[in-house]
Every structure is written in C-alpha cells, then in structure tokens.
C-alpha cells in the first residue's frame, strides 16, 4: 500500500484567533460555520456538524487531494452531478482514523 502522507488534526482547544473580530468585513447578517459540535467518520469522509446545523464534509480522496463541501443547510444535495469531475478515486488513502491527543486534540490519519 502506498505510504499515506495525509494527517488530519482536529483541535478542540478553545482559543480565539488573533483579529477574529477585526477583519473589516461586515458581519451583521453573515452566516459562518461557528464552532464544531460533533463529527462523524464514514470511510474516507468526515462530516463536521457545527452551529445552526451547518455542516462541513471533508472527503479525503487521496494522499494529496481533498474535497471540501461547506453546506449551511447540512444537506449535501446538489441539483446536478459535477459536469467537470470524472474521477475521485485517488491513491494513498483507504480510510480515515481519528486519534485524540492528551491536549484534547484529535488526529485523523489516512491509511
């Protein structure tokens, strides 16, 4: 099996990012994912459930390719299959695992 080169690290420590409220962007009506409340692994996919049912799906397609789907409704539905993408089967990853660290961090490793 090809050596994996992907490591996914989830940090559950609470910290404020520098300048998080000082971006100069109008935030009044904007929707953001907010905090992660839970996550679920299914094969090579990890779905993060965030606040207000916002969900993020990370598909680890290969050791060097990931797919990111950010869905405020958490439905992951699209009206048409991709017109451009014909192959999502890359080498290097068979599944995704998570390991927690003592610092409450969790690693997700592809194998």
């Amino acid at each position: 099996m090809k050596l994996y080169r992907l490591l996914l690290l989830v940090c559950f420590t609470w910290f404020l990012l520098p300048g998080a409220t000082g971006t100069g962007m109008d935030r009044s009506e904007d929707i953001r994912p907010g905090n992660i409340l839970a996550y679920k692994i299914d094969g090579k996919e990890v779905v993060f459930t965030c606040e207000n049912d916002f969900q993020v799906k990370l598909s680890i397609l290969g050791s060097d390719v990931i797919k990111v789907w950010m869905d405020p409704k958490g439905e992951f539905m699209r009206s048409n299959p991709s017109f451009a993408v014909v192959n999502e089967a890359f080498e290097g990853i068979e599944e995704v695992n998570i390991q927690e660290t003592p610092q409450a961090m969790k690693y997700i490793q592809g194998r």
Partner: protein
Amino acid sequence: MILRINARPFRLSIFDKYQRLLLDDYQENGFVQKQADKVVYKTLKKDEFFLGLGEKGGSLNRRGQSFTMWNSDKPCYSADEDPLYKSIPFFLSSYGYGVFLDNTYKTEFKMGSESEDYYSFQVPGGEMVYYVMYGPDYKQIIGRYTQLTGQPIMPPNWALGFSQSRGLLTREDLTRDIAEGYRSRNIPCDIIYQDIGWTQHLQDFNWREGNYENPRKMLSDLADKGFKVVVSQDPVISQVNESQWFEADSLGFFATDIRTGESYDMPWPWGGNCGVVDFTHPEVANWWGEYQQKPINDGVKGFWTDMGEPAWSNEEDVDRLNMQHHAGMHDEIHNVYGLEWDRIVTEQFEKHNPNTRIFQMTRAAYAGLQRYTFGWSGDAGNGGNILNGWSSLAGQIPLALSSGMGLIPFWATDISGYCGDISSYSGFAELYTRWLQFGAFNPLSRIHHEGNNAVEPWLFGEEVLEIVKEAIELKYQLFPYLYSYSREAYDTGLPIMRALILEYPDDAEALKAEHQFLFGSELLVAPVVEQYASIKRVYLPAGEWVDFHDPSNIFRGRQWIDYPVDLSTVPIFVKKGSIIPMMPVMQYIHEEDNYPLTFMVFPANNGHQATEFSLYEDDGESNNYKRDQFGKRIIQYSFNNSGAELKVSAQETNGYPLTQRDYHIKVINTQEPKRIELNGKKIRQSRRPSDNEKLQWYWDKENNTCVITIPEPDKDLKLTVTHK
C-alpha cells in the same frame, strides 16, 4: 498533507509534511454566506502568487487581479478584458497547491484584489464544493487536476498542420482557389475551414445552395491534394428554418422561457431569432448526432463549434436568465452550455464514426472540456483600427499559457487577430507576420479573419510570403517533436506551450517572462510582439541555450538578453542537452508516410547526464492511442572516455509496428570524430555533404557539426563516436 481543523470556531488549515502552512482559512472566514452569495476566504501570504483560471487575459501572475466566470462573447476583446469565452475555475498557488471550485454559476475570484491579507472565491448559487490538490510542483498539481477532470484527447495528426479560414470562406470556388493557392506556392497546409455561412439554414447541416456546386466532389478533390475540410456549427435553430425549428420545438429540444413555457426566443447575430438547442436534454444527443453526421458523410473531417457561450448571453443580457434547460435554470447551466454541446458533438461523432479521432475546436467551454475538444481564443484583434492590434497580439501569449494550465493543450489563436477590416495590406503586413510567427508555434495553427477580409499568406507581398512560409515550414519540420508532446499532454495534462514558471518554478524572473514560452521543454520561443522591433528582450532560465538559427551562438542561462531581430526573426533557443526530432517539409502531414527522421542533437556539456528524447508515433487517426497502441523511439546521447555514444531503442506496444525510417543524426557543436561505428562496424566518412541515403558520416567543419546518415536502420542501434 496535514490537515488541521480548529473546532472553535471551524477553521481549516493545510500543511505539508514538514508542517509548512500551505492553505489556511482566513481567520474565522473559511466560509461566509452573505445573503445568496457563499464566499470562501483564504489567507494570502505575503509572497504568494497564483497561476491559472483558464483562458483569461491579463498578467500570468493572478495576484491582485479579480476574475468572473461567465462565458461571454467578446468580439475584439482587449488584452485584460474579463470575462471571456471559457470558465475554468482552477488555479495554482506558488505554495504548492491547486484549488478547483466545482460550481458552474457566475463565480468570482478575488486573488488579493480586495486585500493584501486574503483572497476569496465566491458562488452566487449552487453548492460550495472545492477541491484542494497538493503538488508540490505545478506539474504535479496539473496532474492531479487531470486525474480529477479527465485526460485531454489527442487530435488527429493532421490537426497539427497548418490551416486557413475566413469569415466568408463559405463557397466552393473560393475554397478551391485557396487550396490551389497553397499548393501552387508550396506552402504547407492541411485544413481549410468553412465558417457558418456554409450552411444556409441554421442548423440543418445542409450545404448552402448556390455556394457549393458539388460539395462531395469538392471534398474528394481536396482530399486528393491532402486537404481536410472542417465546418462550423452553431448551437441554435433559426426560426426561419421552419421545418427544423418546429421539429425541435415539438420534441421539446429547445431551452424554454420560464415566463411562458414556450421555446425561448433567442436573438442571434445571423439567421434571425433562434431556438437554443438544449444539449442537457438527454434525447437531444442522438437527434443532433444524426444532423451533424450529414457533412461528415460527405467527407467533412471535423467541426468548429462556435458561439457556444451561447453568444449574446453576456452579463448584461439578463433576460437569458429566464431560460430553463432540462438540467436547470440558465444561471446554473450557462457556463456548461458549451461543454455539454462539445460532449455531444464528440460522443455522437464517435458513435457514428467508430474508432475515428474527433477534430473539434471550440470557443466556449467549462472545466473538463479537454475530454471532448480543443480550444481557440475567439475574436482577438482591434476592430476599431486593425493596425492597433499589437497589444492584443501580445496578450495572446499569457492567455495561451494560462489556457494550457487549465487543460487546453491543443489551442489556437486566430492568426491575424480576427477583428478589423483590412484597408491596407502593406500597412497590416508587419502585424500579420508577427501574428503568424506566434501562431505557427500554437499546437493548432489557423489563419482566420472576420468577414471577407482575405488573409492568405500571399496577399501581403513577396517578402512576407517568404517569411511566413518559412515559419509554416518549420512547424511541419517540428511535427515529430510536437506529436510526441501531444502524447505527453494526453498522458499528463501538461500543456505544449508552457509558461517558463512551469519548468523553472523557483526562478522568480521566469514568472515575469510572459511574452515568451517553452514549446515542450527543450525549445524556448520568444515571438516578437512589438511594432518596428529591432530587439526582443528574452529571459533565458537556468542552463545553457543554443540559438536555433545559429548554433554557434550560445548563451548562459539566468539572464535577460537583447536578441536582435528583423521581420523574419522568430527567436528560438534550444536548451543544451536536448534532442529535437524533425522531418522534412511536406505539403501536408504524412504526405510521405515513410519520411526520414532527423535527430538534432545538442549535447550537454561533457560530464553531464545523458541527453534523451522519447519520440512518439501512432497511426495518427484512430483512437487506438487510448488503448496504448503506439511506438516510441528512445534516443540517447552520452559521453564516454573516448567520445560519445548514441543509442536508439524501439518500444512497440500492443502490436503497433513502428514505421521504418531513415535517420539523419546531426550532432551540433561537437568535436570532430576520428571514427564512427554502427553496432560495432565502422562507417565510411564522406568528404563532402551528400544527399544520397548511403550509410556514411560527414564532418561539417564550418558548423562543428557531425552528420550521420543511417538508411533503413535496425530498430535498436548503437553509434559509437571516437573523437580526435
């Protein structure tokens, strides 16, 4: 890659295995929904730059620029106009990653144009789905994108020859005249295009009455002289063409107007108002395939799919948003309308013409087009004053290079720029010449101009004719080299016209050199794109570079040079340590099937690694290349203690037999040999240059070149050269 997800709040960061930060959400703004718009913000690093976004104008370095993806019909577009005809939402970062935004709506990319701290991409509808590809080098990123969206199809071999077109080249007599014009002057040419007026009734694919006396005979006669005819098609049915319009309307094959439920009434630049064929409707394919097969059955060899934005559907044409397609409303389908058309054209061609390679060249498309079609850059040139088209010509180079990184390896400019009436041929001659000198190094080369402005090479005077003929002839001589790189494009997705930065990613100067390019990886071409030029400023990257026109002229790399030019000059440099395979000038590709090969060997300095080229060959017209039915000749040149060795070894896969060819080997800038052996047997030295095909070698003292002739060589051979 290492991915880190911060949980509070969500934030995605991607690192390489050395924990170097590659891509990072911009603070907590990795996703922001602003009413209907969804935006991803990424941190912009101080030294980060971007390439790509497909066939876009402006500087190669996309940092600080913004772009919109909305396929647009832009006649006479300026060098940095946006949007243009194609939407390829894929870019590459200098930090070793690429991003493909898989959304067909009118997406926007602000690559640091709003802030020095972040860049963004934005979708007004549909889903926020994007792919991140780690390289780390650009070629690897392109490779991953190729895996994701498909390999580029190879053109038939004759597509790499030269071609002639004109807006009103829509008559048999003119077509025959032009063909005769090429052959009588011995100017190589393979393709003659017919613009959309070849068919009277959009789009029943019948020949225009009165313009063609006997199209089948015309095609047959032209084929006898080596010409292939390619015809234009538009994606619409004119209401004037009542029978076909009612046929399509009754079958529900048009996009409909959401306000009325009726077929959408589409204005069109010619032929009156039209119905827009809905290529997303599954039943349209066979229907369209039957129509387009008619001229193919007559002897036409391919299609030029024009106006597929669809035309007159630019951003300001908001009424088009009322169009309903089978697969969705127009705001979602607009950018893939051309792609869906391209798909059907190719799939139907292959259905009706089994195992025949498609020729399709298209204007409007979306990411993934490489699976079906080749591309050209639409209507460049200055329509207001044709003589002011220099910036348009210059802009075609970075535009071509960016197209290549978006998987359009088989690309063409309209030589002469398409736009503008020609009132003075002598006045336009210089720009015409320069445009052709650039276009000859496009993988697909086509002269085309609007209306009835004739732009055949012999209309600009004897001097221009001689110069452009030489450029066209060189294109044909380089066919073996170009065809080998065409296979590489199929295998890897890598473009043939390459930005220097692709090959020299760590060279900051390479990014600035955007009015020159690598043709493959061995040849550097720097077309002159300035009026009255007496020098061309050229950047030579690492290595040593040999002047192709004067091999005694050698330059060290990593420097800008001022190269003297006159109207006849196309600055071309060969990297030391290269082998360039060439063939004789022919009037069309494979006029002679068993042509000899000339290997131009530009040795590396002694002590460096062996010089090698992998020369590709297949049948040129079938799709057996997709089943890896091909042959290769691997040519290697290396030094040993007493001189040098040249080996040719053959690889034949899946039963493809390599054609027997005589070899002429020219070792440039070398020492005089004392003795040369072929497979251990001494070869006779000739005291003077000879055209006969006997086994021999000759020392060209004046040019320090050794010329070895090997008739009917073994498939595998070894030349041993002992130097004096």
